[in-house]
């Protein structure tokens, strides 16, 4: 599935603000996307994986210990690489379409 371009895996990813609130979210993304790699830069965290990145409400809620609306993801993101394939009340899925 992982399509290779120029010898590299075609990554999808999100850049998130490095804040207290987002630590639980980042942990949830790591748990649900086993191949995810994290790169820490001042003030932010860059998460990349392939072929798709999933943010699952149930995992985020379990880690944060409170209800979490998938719209709250908008408060966390700085940038997205990939296509938003799904964004509903239960999950957000980012992958390339073709």
């Amino acid at each position, binding site marked *: 599935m992982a*399509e290779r*371009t*120029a010898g*590299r895996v*075609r*990554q*999808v*990813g999100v*850049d998130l*603000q490095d804040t207290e609130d987002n630590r639980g979210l980042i942990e949830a993304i790591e748990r649900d996307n086993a191949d995810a790699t994290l790169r820490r*830069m*001042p*003030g*932010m965290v860059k998460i990349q994986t392939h072929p798709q990145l999933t943010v699952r409400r149930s995992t985020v809620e379990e880690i944060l210990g409170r209800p979490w609306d*998938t*719209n*709250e993801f*908008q*408060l*966390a*993101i*700085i*940038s*997205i*690489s*990939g*296509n*938003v*394939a799904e*964004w*509903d*009340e239960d999950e957000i899925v980012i992958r*390339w*379409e*073709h």
Partner: protein
Amino acid sequence: MAKASMRERYTELTRGLAWEPTYVSHEQLYPHTRFEGIKIHDWDAWEDPFRLTVDAYAKYQSEKDKRLYAVVDSFAQGQGHLNATDARYFNSLRLFLQGVTPLEYAAHRHFAYLARHLDGPGPRFASLCQSIDELRHNQTETHAISMYNKYYDGLHNPNLMHDRVWYLSVPKSFFDDGISAGPFEFMTAISFSFEYFLTNLLFVPFMSGASFNGDLSTMSFGFSAQSDESRHMTLGLECIKFILEQDEDNVPIMQDWIDKWFWRGYRLLGLVACMQDYFLPKKVMSWKEAFELYLEQQMLEGLFPDLDYYGIRPPRHVEQAIAEKEYVSHQVFWVLYQFSHAASFTTTIPHDEEMDWMARQYPDTFNRYYRPMYLKARAMQQAGKRFFNGGLPMLCQVCQIPMGFTEIGKPALQAQRFSIHQGERYNTCSDGCQWIFEREPEKYRQAWLPVHQIYQGNCGGPTLPEVMEWYGLQPGDSGEYLDSQDAKNWELWHQPEGVS
């Protein structure tokens, strides 16, 4: 009654609120969406992947603003500006406030126009949200940077400067070019080129750099704005795909626009490249690395294979942009350095440690081409003969940057292209800008080129002090950083403890 799902709510609150016109035709109601040759058969095929509704939009945007203003307020209260690495850093905020913030306002205005004039309710609502976002960015950037205006030069009157000062015609003309095109080309220019490609490089690594240089306020507005941009770029991508899916005849038109706006955006990024490598005293990531990560990896290797499905190939001249990553930031800096006496920022030769960093980041070019020149310029400055270019530079007819670029892969060979149109000669800086000029000579011959305007007597008068006054510049705004009031104040404010 069961709670409506996100999908149902989105449908109800966008499409469900639209109506079919009865006493005018669609063409009369939406007169601007046909002349560009783009064919749309089904506007309802466009869907916002965020499924954003007006209540959710207001709720989360107000939460973003609350968080941002809490940071800005406490940063100002705690004299946060004193924690910056060096007063040189604030020059990047000058470029930002003069060059970028007014563009946010222009975007706000033009998305309000799209919110009225696009035929489909889905894209109209998305444009309305984006219009409000852009106004928010203009306001939050102004608020966040205004605290520095009390202490540092060059941050007053950014709107006047944006309209008049020579280097600011680079971003201004970029946006004017987009606004004066039709709505579909504007979407390609702004939602795609500007949002997708440019803001990632401006708002992500640069803002991380702001954090690293102690400027929490700018980092916060940057990331807060970029959280909107990530929605805008998703919508921009959605727009592109929607247009491509609607009719095969749209593909060559879109390809032309992608080619044009890639190069327009890339040339504008020259200023960002310089900010990234030179205006951040403490370095996070070089321009070259940021370009590789966000442009080569995410855009060329990620996005373009997706667009290939529709018959879109990577942008024309992209290989030239890739070759230039090795030296473009240095070429732009050298232009800004030698014309700082007529600008609303100051520059200075980087410290030795910074030059060592540049040599590591740019092993093939820095020590060979730039360090020797900088050492000479520094020696001149120390001898009291700071180098300023006494002439006025020739500007590229398209990107409006002084003609300081070189032949691709040959950093020592000055590049210049020209085209003859109706007996007049027009100069351009590169194959990319020449191609853009020759595609639409009637548009670009009208460019408001600051140097031409000075020579024509439209900028306050024939002498430099008259032009500077017309630009709205004040003493302290310009020149060599080491001689500036900002540098003197910075030293005074950082004297050993116990001294006021």
